[in-house]
């Protein structure tokens, strides 16, 4: 998987897992503002587990602190699963949760963003990982 030539013409799909509605909307609107990206949003890790086999995501953005399974478990699941392990994954964390962030990175997350973040910083990461112009 990963980058496929000529991809620019295709729309890419980003999964956003975040339980806070307002944060989810914020992230989703930032993601969707980038030309060529569709956002699929969900509020729980469980839902994410259900969505994974049904879509082909090009990137995943997940919160760590969630009520059902935590973001680390989701990262672990994604990174250990041959079907998804190549999908780049960003963590959204908040200040003060360095240990969890470090674990997420150790489990294979590509990047992390600390809330509150500027839309621009997420946008540039998206462009970089999704090879968008």
């Amino acid at each position, binding site marked *: 998987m990963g980058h496929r030539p000529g991809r620019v013409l295709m729309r890419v799909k980003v999964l956003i897992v975040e*339980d*806070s*509605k*307002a*944060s989810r*909307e*914020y992230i989703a609107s930032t993601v969707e503002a980038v030309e060529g990206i569709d956002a699929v949003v969900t*509020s*729980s*890790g*469980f*839902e994410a*587990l*259900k969505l994974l*086999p049904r879509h082909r995501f090009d990137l995943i953005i997940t919160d*760590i*602190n*969630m*009520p*059902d*399974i*935590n973001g*680390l*478990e*989701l990262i*672990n*699941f994604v*990174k*250990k*699963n*041959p*079907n998804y392990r190549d999908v780049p994954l960003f963590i959204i964390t*908040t*200040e*003060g*949760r360095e*240990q*969890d962030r470090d*674990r997420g990175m*150790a*489990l294979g997350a590509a990047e992390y963003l600390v*809330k*509150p973040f500027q839309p621009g910083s997420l946008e540039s990461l998206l462009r970089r990982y999704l090879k968008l112009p």
Partner: protein
Amino acid sequence: MSPASKALAEFVAEATEILEALGKDLLVLDERRGQEADPERVNGIFRAAHSLKGLAGLFGQERISRLAHGTEDLLDRLRLGKLLLDDAVLDTLIEALDAFQALLAETAHGSESEGLSRRAEGMAERLGRLGAPVAARDEDPLDRLELDAQVRAVFTEYEEHRLRENVRRGVSLWRVRAAFDLSDFDKGLADLNARLKPLGEVISTLPSAQPGGAHGIAFDLIFGAQVAQAELESGLKGTPAELSQLTVRPSSASARSAEALSRAPLAQAESHAALVVASPTDVLPQTPATRRGGRKKGARATPAPAATAPGARAGDASHPVVESRRAAAPEARADAGPPPGPGPASQAWLPLADPATWGARPGPASGDWALSADETRSGVEATEGHEEVAAGRGTRPARGPVGNPGAASVVEARSQGGRGPGTSGPVPSLVTYLQGPGGRAPGRTAPASDRPAAPAPVPAESSLRSLTQTVRVDIGRLDGLINMVGELLLIKANLQRLAESARVDGAVPLSKLFGQELARETRGLERKLEALQEGLLEARMVPVGQVFDKLARLVRRITREAGKEIDFVIGGGEVELDKLIVEELSDPLMHLIRNAIDHGVEPPEVRLAAGKPRRAVVALRAEQKGNHVVIEVSDDGAGIDELRVREVALGRGLITFAQAEEMGRRELLNLIFLPGFSTARSVSELSGRGVGLDVVKNNLGNLSGIIDVWSERGKGTAFHLTLPVTLAIIRALVVGVSARTYAVPLNSVLEILSVQPGDIRTLERREVLDVRGQTLPFVRLSRLFGLPERPVSRYFVVVVGLAQERLGIAVDELHGQQDIVTKPLGGRLQSVRGISGATDLGNRRTVLVLDVAALLEEGMAQERRRA
């Protein structure tokens, strides 16, 4: 709305939700001061603060964000065991909640006051300094746990901490593996969690990294069991779970096991008391489980397993000592050496054996026990409340380095029973709410103990539900949808008529096939409508606990001001009512509660002198009864003196002496609702506050509800508010009188009689009917409404009733039943008597809906006047 103000509204809405959840959890912690806090609840509060911080940050709400940061920080230390939850910490958290609410209110109004900013700033600073650190331990118990490093790497810091705590306490740790179908694994997991929760702590849920086939997914749950292996196994029977015990190497400080053993007898005695008291509430959950069964609330419902598990515990009540000993067993084992049974090679999967093999007791509660618990429930509430308080104090789990799983499991089971919608019944769970006053220093009893107990809104499956999954629907939008349903119902009725004529009338040049097809379409449409209707109604329903919680906070303040000592008991907060009704309820309820506190309840000295307990009980309870919800506001205070009521009513000329002679106790008491009865001066001598019990009654009337009072001198007073579950879509009986058509809400129709004019008797100049030996007050709707009367050979008498009141309403014709969408007359027409709204019945005919409560009222008033 501009994008900016829309974003702000979104922020305020979500922040409000978060703060509400936070407030409820804090209330529970507050109520259980002195007990060890439920780690999951503390984590829930942490998560709330965490979400709030992130949210505020995203929306640039700096003041809220900073305070949330401080709060989150403190809570983080708490949940990670770096800090003890003492009174000072809890008080500060409650203050912080107040500050959050004030900040949010300012934000919503677009203002920012200097004073509040400073207050928030100061508070954030204080939060950072707060709390005594827990003494450091030299060894990390987690090192003794044999767990794959890969698994450990997936734990968050918090999960790691919980695991550490469980190891430290010598709890037996299990890996519970279960595979589910991908399509509904969340249901399976919810079920598994619901079964596991009463038995211990689910520390982590790990989706297995191994691909579970195309349609499957496996999970590993790391579980700290508070019960013996056999009980765990029987608790999981019927689930796809496989168990394997995790090995914990013995602690170097082996002296601990000796200490644990020496504590055992005490623990047994304590758990005995707790079990006996706790059982009734534990058994009750089966009621709502049945009630909810028909309501398709799949997402919320895990009632079955949740109800069974505590039930199983109730069954144990007859041998509590045995129970304690068994439960204590794993602890001793874990501390003494490698566990028996699976042996050192503990990763082997055990099949779940038949419970009999393991000597486990039968699962679900025995019917006998449930029944007897139910029968004695009211007695327990009324007379044993204070013993329960004492028991609550006694069961505080040991705080030593080695916890006692026996006692802890009892507490856990009990709080399960008393918790949220999933598990608790409409009957107040006294045990949960009366614990407060128990283990507290005398000095701070008054302010803290009257703090109400919120019915913890987060049900047992809280770990599966996001803080923000609650749907907040704008009531205007809902009303629009409901209007749409009304229109759809119209279309349906028209279609039905079409189909009927096409099929029956051969002269119509349409094929029968056409008619059949049309009829089939109609049925399909009908089904869809029903689903839509049901969904809409449910969306409108909110737990009355919403308003109870708000009241609980106010009660605290009032009690303190009044200098009374009161336990405020809440029950049935999970009972659901139409949003509109719930919103409108807070004023009348506040009024009644204020009356109870100010005037119903005597000062402590007076109570002692009267041989009553020093602390009074004011209770607010909701219970669903069919299509109605009954809310009771009661106190065990001085009661209302009906003879004084009589005197006042006579004095004010509200009744004549002759009328007063005829009146029974109940009728006399109900005079307090007459307009003009109560004035502040006269009524404070009785027990009402006076200003406006008639207003309370009117408010309820607007909600199609009625109020009734019971009181006994020296014993107390209880107000019963009977309300319809919803106002929006109701089934109605369509009746005809004088060529007009009216709709009567079916939920208040008791029966319909066919009556010859000769059956109507005149008793003391009023018309009555004899129905099965009882005299039924009776009105002719045509006369009541001043319509031209038509001679008829027989009347139909629609017997309506609410609470104890009965009234026969005579009409000319019955046109059948129909679902109607009632629209309030609203605006200019609010004062129209006897009509609650209007509806469409098809043919664009607007039909008025009778206000049964008001008509009953009127009928009874006529009775009184004529009597």
